[in-house]
Protein backbone atom coordinates (compact mmCIF):
# COMPACT_ATOMS: atom_id res chain seq x y z
CA UNK A 1 0.00 0.00 0.00
CA UNK A 2 2.83 2.33 0.98
CA UNK A 3 4.62 1.49 -2.26
CA UNK A 4 1.45 2.13 -4.25
CA UNK A 5 0.96 5.54 -2.65
CA UNK A 6 4.60 6.50 -3.22
CA UNK A 7 4.22 5.47 -6.85
CA UNK A 8 1.07 7.52 -7.17
CA UNK A 9 2.72 10.63 -5.73
CA UNK A 10 5.83 10.09 -7.87
CA UNK A 11 3.84 9.84 -11.09
CA UNK A 12 1.63 12.66 -9.95
CA UNK A 13 4.67 14.94 -9.63
CA UNK A 14 6.16 13.60 -12.84
CA UNK A 15 3.03 14.14 -14.84
CA UNK A 16 2.23 17.49 -13.25
CA UNK A 17 1.96 20.34 -15.66
CA UNK A 18 2.58 23.94 -15.09
CA UNK A 19 -0.83 25.56 -15.30
CA UNK A 20 -1.20 27.66 -18.39
CA UNK A 21 -0.88 31.31 -17.51
CA UNK A 22 -3.84 33.23 -18.77
CA UNK A 23 -2.66 35.89 -21.10
CA UNK A 24 -5.53 38.28 -20.28
CA UNK A 25 -4.57 41.90 -20.60
CA UNK A 26 -5.39 44.24 -17.69
CA UNK A 27 -7.21 46.45 -20.18
CA UNK A 28 -9.65 43.61 -20.86
CA UNK A 29 -10.54 43.11 -17.22
CA UNK A 30 -14.30 43.13 -16.53
CA UNK A 31 -13.83 46.02 -14.06
CA UNK A 32 -12.29 48.22 -16.75
CA UNK A 33 -15.04 47.18 -19.15
CA UNK A 34 -17.64 48.08 -16.51
CA UNK A 35 -16.07 51.52 -16.03
CA UNK A 36 -16.01 52.02 -19.80
CA UNK A 37 -19.66 51.14 -20.30
CA UNK A 38 -21.33 52.40 -17.10
CA UNK A 39 -18.81 54.92 -15.76
CA UNK A 40 -16.17 54.89 -13.03
CA UNK A 41 -18.81 55.34 -10.31
CA UNK A 42 -20.29 51.97 -11.28
CA UNK A 43 -17.14 50.28 -9.91
CA UNK A 44 -18.02 48.98 -6.44
CA UNK A 45 -16.14 50.60 -3.54
CA UNK A 46 -14.59 47.30 -2.48
CA UNK A 47 -12.97 46.98 -5.92
CA UNK A 48 -11.53 50.50 -6.13
CA UNK A 49 -8.01 49.46 -5.08
CA UNK A 50 -8.02 46.65 -7.64
CA UNK A 51 -9.46 49.02 -10.24
CA UNK A 52 -6.67 51.58 -9.66
CA UNK A 53 -4.06 48.82 -9.94
CA UNK A 54 -5.68 47.62 -13.15
CA UNK A 55 -5.60 51.13 -14.58
CA UNK A 56 -1.86 51.37 -13.87
CA UNK A 57 -1.26 47.89 -15.29
CA UNK A 58 -3.27 48.74 -18.39
CA UNK A 59 -1.23 51.92 -18.87
CA UNK A 60 1.98 49.92 -18.56
CA UNK A 61 0.72 47.45 -21.14
CA UNK A 62 0.26 50.25 -23.64
CA UNK A 63 -3.32 51.17 -22.93
CA UNK A 64 -2.53 54.78 -22.05
CA UNK A 65 -4.84 56.13 -24.69
CA UNK A 66 -7.61 53.74 -23.61
CA UNK A 67 -7.41 54.97 -19.99
CA UNK A 68 -7.36 58.58 -21.12
CA UNK A 69 -10.48 57.89 -23.14
CA UNK A 70 -12.13 56.18 -20.15
CA UNK A 71 -11.66 59.30 -18.00
CA UNK A 72 -12.74 61.60 -20.78
CA UNK A 73 -15.91 59.62 -21.42
CA UNK A 74 -16.67 59.55 -17.70
CA UNK A 75 -16.46 63.35 -17.50
CA UNK A 76 -18.55 63.68 -20.65
CA UNK A 77 -21.17 61.22 -19.38
CA UNK A 78 -21.64 63.22 -16.16
CA UNK A 79 -21.51 66.53 -17.98
CA UNK A 80 -24.06 65.50 -20.61
CA UNK A 81 -26.47 64.09 -18.05
CA UNK A 82 -26.42 67.25 -15.94
CA UNK A 83 -25.55 70.13 -18.22
CA UNK A 84 -29.17 71.23 -18.57
CA UNK A 85 -31.78 71.33 -15.88
CA UNK A 86 -34.48 68.86 -16.78
CA UNK A 87 -38.17 68.89 -15.96
CA UNK A 88 -39.14 70.56 -12.63
CA UNK A 89 -35.55 71.15 -11.45
CA UNK A 90 -35.29 74.57 -13.11
CA UNK A 91 -38.42 75.72 -11.25
CA UNK A 92 -36.90 74.53 -7.98
CA UNK A 93 -33.65 76.33 -8.77
CA UNK A 94 -35.58 79.50 -9.56
CA UNK A 95 -37.45 79.28 -6.24
CA UNK A 96 -34.13 78.95 -4.38
CA UNK A 97 -32.63 81.82 -6.32
CA UNK A 98 -35.61 84.10 -5.66
CA UNK A 99 -35.71 83.29 -1.92
CA UNK A 100 -31.95 83.83 -1.75
CA UNK A 101 -32.23 87.17 -3.54
CA UNK A 102 -35.23 88.24 -1.46
CA UNK A 103 -33.41 87.41 1.77
CA UNK A 104 -30.18 89.24 0.95
CA UNK A 105 -31.96 92.18 -0.67
CA UNK A 106 -34.01 92.42 2.52
CA UNK A 107 -30.86 92.49 4.62
CA UNK A 108 -29.39 95.27 2.55
CA UNK A 109 -32.45 97.39 1.86
CA UNK A 110 -34.69 96.84 4.88
CA UNK A 111 -34.85 99.60 7.43
CA UNK A 112 -35.78 99.19 11.08
CA UNK A 113 -39.08 100.89 11.86
CA UNK A 114 -38.69 103.90 14.11
CA UNK A 115 -40.42 103.52 17.44
Amino acid at each position, binding site marked *: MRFFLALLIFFGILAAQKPKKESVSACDDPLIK*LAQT*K*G*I*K*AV*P*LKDIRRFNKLLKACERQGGKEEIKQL*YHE*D*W*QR*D*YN*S*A*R*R*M*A*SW*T*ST*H*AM*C*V*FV*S*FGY*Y*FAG*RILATTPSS
Partner: protein
Amino acid sequence: MKSQIHVLILSILLLGGSFVPAQPKLSIDLGIGFYEPTLSGFDENETVQFPTKGIFNRNLLLNWGIYYEFFSNARIGYNSFTSYELGKDILLLNSEAIFRRSINYRLFPIETFFRWRPKIELNFTLAPIWGRGRIELDTTPGDKTEDWNFFLNSFGGSEDPVKDMGATDVMRSDWYGYTGMLGFRYYISSRLALDLKGGFINNSYKEKKWRVQRQSVTGPKMKIDDLPIFSFKVVYGLR
Protein backbone atom coordinates in the same frame (compact mmCIF):
# COMPACT_ATOMS: atom_id res chain seq x y z
CA MET B 1 -38.84 23.48 -0.12
CA LYS B 2 -35.40 24.25 1.25
CA SER B 3 -33.87 24.20 -2.23
CA GLN B 4 -36.67 26.44 -3.50
CA ILE B 5 -35.74 29.01 -0.86
CA HIS B 6 -32.13 28.83 -2.02
CA VAL B 7 -33.22 29.33 -5.63
CA LEU B 8 -35.33 32.32 -4.56
CA ILE B 9 -32.44 33.90 -2.62
CA LEU B 10 -30.08 33.30 -5.53
CA SER B 11 -32.54 34.79 -8.02
CA ILE B 12 -33.04 37.88 -5.83
CA LEU B 13 -29.29 38.34 -5.52
CA LEU B 14 -28.78 37.96 -9.25
CA LEU B 15 -31.65 40.26 -10.15
CA GLY B 16 -30.58 42.81 -7.51
CA GLY B 17 -27.02 42.60 -8.77
CA SER B 18 -28.12 43.42 -12.26
CA PHE B 19 -29.75 46.64 -11.00
CA VAL B 20 -26.67 47.82 -9.14
CA PRO B 21 -24.75 49.56 -11.96
CA ALA B 22 -27.87 51.45 -12.96
CA GLN B 23 -28.47 52.86 -9.48
CA PRO B 24 -28.31 56.63 -9.04
CA LYS B 25 -25.37 58.14 -7.24
CA LEU B 26 -24.95 58.11 -3.52
CA SER B 27 -22.56 60.57 -1.91
CA ILE B 28 -21.35 61.52 1.53
CA ASP B 29 -19.85 64.83 2.55
CA LEU B 30 -17.90 66.24 5.44
CA GLY B 31 -16.98 69.84 6.12
CA ILE B 32 -17.45 72.97 8.13
CA GLY B 33 -20.04 75.70 8.25
CA PHE B 34 -19.83 79.28 9.35
CA TYR B 35 -22.55 81.54 10.75
CA GLU B 36 -22.93 84.29 13.32
CA PRO B 37 -25.64 83.75 15.93
CA THR B 38 -26.22 85.96 18.94
CA LEU B 39 -26.34 83.75 22.01
CA SER B 40 -27.12 86.48 24.52
CA GLY B 41 -28.46 83.93 27.02
CA PHE B 42 -24.88 82.76 27.47
CA ASP B 43 -22.80 85.80 26.61
CA GLU B 44 -24.74 88.34 28.65
CA ASN B 45 -25.47 86.03 31.53
CA GLU B 46 -24.35 87.71 34.73
CA THR B 47 -25.24 84.87 37.09
CA VAL B 48 -23.45 81.95 35.49
CA GLN B 49 -20.02 82.35 34.00
CA PHE B 50 -20.09 80.48 30.70
CA PRO B 51 -16.98 79.82 28.60
CA THR B 52 -15.75 82.85 26.71
CA LYS B 53 -17.22 83.08 23.25
CA GLY B 54 -14.96 82.43 20.31
CA ILE B 55 -15.00 81.30 16.71
CA PHE B 56 -15.00 77.61 17.62
CA ASN B 57 -17.93 77.68 20.03
CA ARG B 58 -20.03 80.33 18.28
CA ASN B 59 -19.38 80.62 14.58
CA LEU B 60 -18.01 77.27 13.49
CA LEU B 61 -20.33 74.40 12.62
CA LEU B 62 -19.40 70.81 11.95
CA ASN B 63 -21.13 69.65 8.84
CA TRP B 64 -21.80 66.19 7.43
CA GLY B 65 -24.37 64.83 5.07
CA ILE B 66 -25.49 62.05 2.83
CA TYR B 67 -27.21 62.57 -0.51
CA TYR B 68 -29.00 60.35 -2.97
CA GLU B 69 -29.22 61.45 -6.58
CA PHE B 70 -32.74 60.43 -7.49
CA PHE B 71 -32.98 62.37 -10.73
CA SER B 72 -30.41 63.48 -13.32
CA ASN B 73 -30.42 67.01 -11.87
CA ALA B 74 -31.61 66.52 -8.31
CA ARG B 75 -30.54 65.06 -5.00
CA ILE B 76 -32.30 64.44 -1.76
CA GLY B 77 -30.59 63.81 1.54
CA TYR B 78 -29.79 64.62 5.11
CA ASN B 79 -27.38 67.27 6.26
CA SER B 80 -26.38 68.23 9.76
CA PHE B 81 -24.75 71.43 11.02
CA THR B 82 -23.71 71.26 14.66
CA SER B 83 -22.28 73.87 16.99
CA TYR B 84 -20.55 72.63 20.14
CA GLU B 85 -19.48 74.29 23.36
CA LEU B 86 -17.81 72.74 26.37
CA GLY B 87 -17.04 74.33 29.70
CA LYS B 88 -15.47 72.95 32.84
CA ASP B 89 -15.74 74.22 36.39
CA ILE B 90 -18.84 76.32 35.77
CA LEU B 91 -19.52 77.74 39.19
CA LEU B 92 -23.07 77.05 40.31
CA LEU B 93 -24.71 77.25 43.69
CA ASN B 94 -23.35 74.02 45.16
CA SER B 95 -20.94 72.62 42.65
CA GLU B 96 -18.49 73.28 39.88
CA ALA B 97 -20.27 71.77 36.92
CA ILE B 98 -19.21 70.53 33.53
CA PHE B 99 -21.30 72.21 30.88
CA ARG B 100 -21.89 70.92 27.36
CA ARG B 101 -24.01 72.73 24.81
CA SER B 102 -24.85 71.73 21.26
CA ILE B 103 -27.08 73.32 18.66
CA ASN B 104 -27.90 70.93 15.88
CA TYR B 105 -29.50 72.08 12.63
CA ARG B 106 -30.78 68.97 10.87
CA LEU B 107 -31.54 69.70 7.24
CA PHE B 108 -33.56 67.56 4.84
CA PRO B 109 -32.55 69.19 1.59
CA ILE B 110 -33.72 68.93 -1.97
CA GLU B 111 -30.83 70.03 -4.11
CA THR B 112 -31.03 70.67 -7.83
CA PHE B 113 -27.94 71.26 -9.90
CA PHE B 114 -26.46 71.57 -13.34
CA ARG B 115 -22.96 71.27 -14.75
CA TRP B 116 -21.83 74.63 -15.96
CA ARG B 117 -18.52 73.13 -17.12
CA PRO B 118 -17.50 69.45 -17.07
CA LYS B 119 -15.80 69.97 -13.69
CA ILE B 120 -17.96 72.77 -12.29
CA GLU B 121 -21.45 72.39 -10.91
CA LEU B 122 -23.85 75.02 -9.64
CA ASN B 123 -26.40 73.83 -7.13
CA PHE B 124 -29.53 75.17 -5.46
CA THR B 125 -30.66 73.91 -2.08
CA LEU B 126 -33.93 74.37 -0.28
CA ALA B 127 -34.41 72.51 2.99
CA PRO B 128 -36.69 72.33 5.99
CA ILE B 129 -34.82 72.28 9.30
CA TRP B 130 -35.46 70.33 12.44
CA GLY B 131 -33.29 72.09 14.97
CA ARG B 132 -32.38 70.86 18.40
CA GLY B 133 -30.62 72.61 21.25
CA ARG B 134 -29.11 70.52 24.01
CA ILE B 135 -27.56 71.67 27.26
CA GLU B 136 -26.03 69.14 29.60
CA LEU B 137 -24.79 69.81 33.09
CA ASP B 138 -22.76 67.45 35.27
CA THR B 139 -23.47 68.67 38.75
CA THR B 140 -22.67 67.23 42.13
CA PRO B 141 -25.32 64.64 43.03
CA GLY B 142 -27.52 65.75 45.89
CA ASP B 143 -27.48 69.37 44.92
CA LYS B 144 -28.82 68.88 41.44
CA THR B 145 -32.19 70.56 41.86
CA GLU B 146 -30.74 73.69 43.40
CA ASP B 147 -28.01 73.88 40.80
CA TRP B 148 -30.41 73.42 37.91
CA ASN B 149 -32.84 75.99 39.29
CA PHE B 150 -29.96 78.39 39.76
CA PHE B 151 -28.90 77.72 36.18
CA LEU B 152 -32.43 78.04 34.75
CA ASN B 153 -33.22 81.15 36.76
CA SER B 154 -30.25 82.82 35.09
CA PHE B 155 -32.20 82.70 31.83
CA GLY B 156 -35.28 84.33 33.33
CA GLY B 157 -38.76 82.77 33.38
CA SER B 158 -40.51 81.43 36.44
CA GLU B 159 -38.55 81.12 39.67
CA ASP B 160 -37.23 77.64 40.59
CA PRO B 161 -39.07 75.74 37.80
CA VAL B 162 -37.65 72.30 38.61
CA LYS B 163 -39.16 70.60 41.64
CA ASP B 164 -37.72 67.14 41.39
CA MET B 165 -34.61 65.86 39.58
CA GLY B 166 -33.78 62.37 38.47
CA ALA B 167 -30.59 61.04 36.94
CA THR B 168 -30.72 62.81 33.56
CA ASP B 169 -29.50 66.34 33.66
CA VAL B 170 -30.04 67.47 30.11
CA MET B 171 -32.28 70.18 28.77
CA ARG B 172 -33.52 70.11 25.21
CA SER B 173 -35.46 72.24 22.82
CA ASP B 174 -36.73 71.49 19.31
CA TRP B 175 -37.79 73.93 16.65
CA TYR B 176 -38.43 74.11 12.94
CA GLY B 177 -36.97 76.29 10.28
CA TYR B 178 -35.89 76.48 6.68
CA THR B 179 -32.86 77.32 4.64
CA GLY B 180 -31.98 78.27 1.08
CA MET B 181 -28.48 78.01 -0.34
CA LEU B 182 -26.64 78.50 -3.60
CA GLY B 183 -23.57 76.36 -4.12
CA PHE B 184 -20.55 75.91 -6.28
CA ARG B 185 -18.96 72.48 -6.64
CA TYR B 186 -15.62 71.69 -8.20
CA TYR B 187 -15.01 68.07 -9.17
CA ILE B 188 -11.41 66.95 -8.55
CA SER B 189 -12.24 63.53 -9.93
CA SER B 190 -15.55 61.99 -10.95
CA ARG B 191 -16.00 60.80 -7.34
CA LEU B 192 -14.32 63.57 -5.32
CA ALA B 193 -15.45 67.19 -5.18
CA LEU B 194 -15.15 70.40 -3.16
CA ASP B 195 -18.38 72.17 -2.39
CA LEU B 196 -18.87 75.77 -1.34
CA LYS B 197 -22.30 77.01 -0.35
CA GLY B 198 -23.79 80.27 0.84
CA GLY B 199 -27.28 81.13 1.88
CA PHE B 200 -29.56 81.91 4.76
CA ILE B 201 -30.99 79.99 7.67
CA ASN B 202 -34.21 80.81 9.46
CA ASN B 203 -35.24 79.16 12.73
CA SER B 204 -38.39 79.55 14.78
CA TYR B 205 -36.56 79.12 18.08
CA LYS B 206 -38.36 80.13 21.28
CA GLU B 207 -36.51 80.23 24.59
CA LYS B 208 -39.66 79.31 26.49
CA LYS B 209 -39.88 75.91 24.77
CA TRP B 210 -37.10 74.05 26.56
CA ARG B 211 -37.75 70.98 28.61
CA VAL B 212 -35.84 69.21 31.30
CA GLN B 213 -37.08 65.94 32.74
CA ARG B 214 -40.43 66.50 30.93
CA GLN B 215 -40.88 69.85 32.65
CA SER B 216 -41.16 73.02 30.61
CA VAL B 217 -38.49 75.55 31.40
CA THR B 218 -37.13 78.76 29.99
CA GLY B 219 -33.83 78.41 28.18
CA PRO B 220 -31.22 80.85 26.97
CA LYS B 221 -32.04 83.72 24.63
CA MET B 222 -30.53 82.96 21.24
CA LYS B 223 -31.00 84.86 18.02
CA ILE B 224 -30.69 82.18 15.38
CA ASP B 225 -33.24 83.40 12.86
CA ASP B 226 -32.44 85.28 9.65
CA LEU B 227 -28.79 84.31 9.59
CA PRO B 228 -26.44 84.12 6.63
CA ILE B 229 -24.67 80.76 6.55
CA PHE B 230 -21.72 79.43 4.58
CA SER B 231 -20.36 75.94 4.25
CA PHE B 232 -17.33 74.29 2.76
CA LYS B 233 -17.18 70.53 2.40
CA VAL B 234 -15.52 67.64 0.71
CA VAL B 235 -17.89 65.37 -1.18
CA TYR B 236 -17.22 61.76 -2.03
CA GLY B 237 -19.43 59.85 -4.45
CA LEU B 238 -19.94 56.31 -3.32
CA ARG B 239 -21.76 55.11 -6.41
